[in-house]
C-alpha cells in the first residue's frame, strides 16, 4: 500500500515536472504581460495612481458599436466557416484511408504562406478586371463588372479564408472518431438520411463543431487588418486599439480596451468550457 502510494507520488511529481516548462512559460510570457496591461489600464495617464477613468472612457455609444461590429463579423465568420468547413471535414474523414493525410496536408499548406500574400491573391481575383469578373462576363452572366472589393462580403470572404482550417480540422477529427455503425443502424431502421444526420451524426460530432467555433470565433474578434486590406472601411476593436496605442499614444485607454476584449473572448471560452467542451480537439 505504502509502496503504491510512494509510486503514485513519484508519478505525480513527474507529471508536475512534465508541465513545469509550460507553466514557467505561461507565467513569464503570458501572465506577466497581462498583468502589465491590466496595470496600465488601471492607472491614470498622468501617473497619479489607481483609476477607473480609462474604463469609463470606453462607455461611449460609438465604442460599443465598434465592439458590436467586431462581434458581428466574428459571428458571421464562424457561421460561414462552419457551413463550409463542416461538410469538408466530414467528407475528409469519410475519404479513403490513403487520401486522408494528403487532404490534411493540402488543407494546412496554404497556411504556411503569409496570410497577407494570399489575401492579395483574392484581391487580384476579385478586382474589376479580375478573373472572376472576366469569367462571369464571358459567360454572359453580367455585362458590367461587379464591385466585389470594398464590400462587407469581401471582408467576410477574407476572414473565412484565413480561419477555415481551424474549423475543418476539429470537425474532421470529430467525424473521424465517430462510430459510423450508429448511422448505418438508424438508416437500416428506416430513418431518412437527413433525419439520421440530425439525430445521430450531428449530436455525436457536436464537440468538434463547438471546438471549431471557438477556435474560429475567438481570434476573429481581434483581427482587423483583413478588413483594412479588403478596403472595407470597417471599424473593428483591433482598429480602435491600434489607433489608441499608436496614433493617440494613449496606452492607458488602449490597455483598457484590450482588457475588455480579453475578458469578452475569455468569457466566451469559459462558457464553452462550462458547457462541457473541455477538449478543443483539433485533430
Amino acid at each position, binding site marked *: 500500500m505504502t509502496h503504491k502510494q510512494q509510486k503514485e507520488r513519484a508519478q505525480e511529481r513527474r507529471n508536475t515536472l*512534465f508541465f513545469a516548462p509550460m507553466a514557467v512559460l505561461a507565467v513569464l510570457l503570458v501572465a506577466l504581460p497581462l498583468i502589465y496591461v491590466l496595470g496600465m489600464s488601471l492607472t491614470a495617464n498622468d501617473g497619479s495612481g489607481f483609476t477607473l477613468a480609462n474604463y469609463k472612457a470606453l462607455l461611449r455609444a460609438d465604442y460599443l458599436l465598434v465592439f458590436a461590429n467586431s462581434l458581428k463579423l466574428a459571428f458571421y465568420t464562424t457561421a460561414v466557416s462552419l457551413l463550409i468547413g463542416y461538410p469538408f471535414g466530414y467528407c475528409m474523414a469519410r475519404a479513403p484511408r490513403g487520401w486522408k493525410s494528403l487532404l490534411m496536408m493540402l488543407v494546412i499548406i496554404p497556411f504556411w504562406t503569409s496570410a497577407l500574400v494570399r489575401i492579395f491573391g483574392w484581391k487580384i481575383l476579385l478586382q474589376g478586371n479580375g478573373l472572376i469578373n472576366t469569367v462571369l462576363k464571358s459567360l454572359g452572366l453580367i455585362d458590367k463588372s461587379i464591385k466585389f472589393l*470594398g464590400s462587407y462580403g469581401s471582408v467576410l470572404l477574407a476572414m473565412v479564408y484565413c480561419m477555415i482550417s481551424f474549423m475543418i480540422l476539429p470537425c474532421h477529427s470529430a467525424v473521424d472518431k465517430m462510430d459510423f455503425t450508429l448511422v448505418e443502424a438508424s438508416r437500416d431502421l428506416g430513418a431518412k438520411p437527413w433525419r439520421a444526420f440530425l439525430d445521430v451524426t450531428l449530436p455525436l460530432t457536436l464537440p468538434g463543431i463547438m471546438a471549431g467555433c471557438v477556435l474560429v470565433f475567438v481570434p476573429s474578434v481581434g483581427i482587423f487588418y483583413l478588413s483594412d486590406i479588403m*478596403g472595407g472601411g470597417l471599424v473593428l476593436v483591433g482598429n480602435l486599439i491600434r489607433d489608441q496605442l499608436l496614433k493617440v499614444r494613449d496606452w492607458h485607454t488602449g490597455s483598457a480596451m484590450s482588457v475588455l476584449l480579453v475578458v469578452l473572448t475569455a468569457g466566451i471560452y469559459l462558457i464553452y468550457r462550462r458547457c462541457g467542451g473541455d477538449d478543443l480537439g483539433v485533430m
Partner: protein
Amino acid sequence: MKKLICLLLMLACLFTCAIAETVNAKDEAVLNIFTWEGYIDYSTVIEPFEKETGIKVNYATFASNEEMFEKLSAVNGGEYDIILASDYILNAAREAGLMQKFDASVVTNFGNLNPDFTSKFFDPANEYVVPYVSGIPLIVYDPAVVEIEIDGFEDLWDPSLKDTLGLIDDARVTIGMVLLSMGQSMNTTDEAVLAEAAKKLEALKENIHVLEYENLHNYVVSGDIGAAYTFTPFVALALDANPDLKVVWPKEGLGFGIDGLFIPVNAPHAGNANRFLEYMLRPEVAAVCAEWQYYCTPNAAALDVIGDWYTARSEFMGIFDRMNDAEFVLNLPAADEQKFQDIWTTFKLGL
C-alpha cells in the same frame, strides 16, 4: 528523463542567450537601417554602398511610422543607426530627444538639397534630418468612368461620383483633405471648424466606395473605382498601368510630405551612419532612389543626372510650381489627435 532535461536545458540556454549583454559593437563595420521594406533599393543603392565601404548593412523594416516610434522609444534611441521615416514622426522623435545631430564634417554635401525642402518644422536648423524623398497626395481619375472634369477637392462631392471614390484610410490625411476643401488648415484644432469638417465629410459618404491607406491605385486601374486621392508613388504607378488616367493638382491646396533620414541618439554605429548620409546625398544615388521610389526628389543636384523620363512626368515635377500651397500634417497633442480620431471613427461607423 534525459530528453526532458535536454529540453529544460535548451530553454535555459535560450533565456541566457536572450539576457546576455550585447557585445560592444562600436567599431563593427555594420550599419543598421530601419525603414519600410523596399524603401531603399538593395541592388542599386545598398549593395554598392557595401562594396564601396566594406560596411555590412542590416535592413530592418516597419509597417508604419507609429510602430517605428514605439520601437525606437523602447530601445532608447539605440539599436538602429539610420532611420528613414515621415516628417511628423521625425518631429516627434526630435522632440522626444531620440535623434542625434549628423556630423557636418562627414556629411559635406547637404548643400545638394533644394532649400525648399530643408529647414522644415521637423528640423528647423538642418542639424538632424537629411530629406530623402517628398510626396504630395493627388487625385487620380479615369475619364472613362468619371463624367465630370475634376480640378479640385470640391468636385469629389459631385453627385455623379456616387460610389466611385477611393480615399486614404487615415484620419489626419482625409479630414485634412476636407479641411483644405473648406479653405482651412489641415492642422486646425478649432472645435467649430472640425465639427463643420465632420459634417462635410459625412456628405461625402455616398461617393466613397473604398477606404485604404496604400495601394489605392490598384482599384483605379482595375476599374473598381473612378477616382482616388492617394500618395505620389501610387499616382505614378496608376499612370504606368493606364496612361489615359488624369492627374489633378487640387486647386484649393495641397498636402505635403517629406520622408527623411536621421541617426538615433544612441546609434551603435553612428560613424557609419554619417558616411551613409553622405552617400545618400550624392546626386547619382539620390537620382536612383527617386527613380525607383517614384517620389519627388528634394535633391537639386540629382535633377541634373536623373533620367529624362522622370523630369517629363508632372507627378514628380509639379511640386515646384505649387511649393507655397503645400501644407504638412503636423503632429498634434494627444487630446487634439483624439478629436480627429473620433470624427474618423464616427464617420467610418456610419459608412
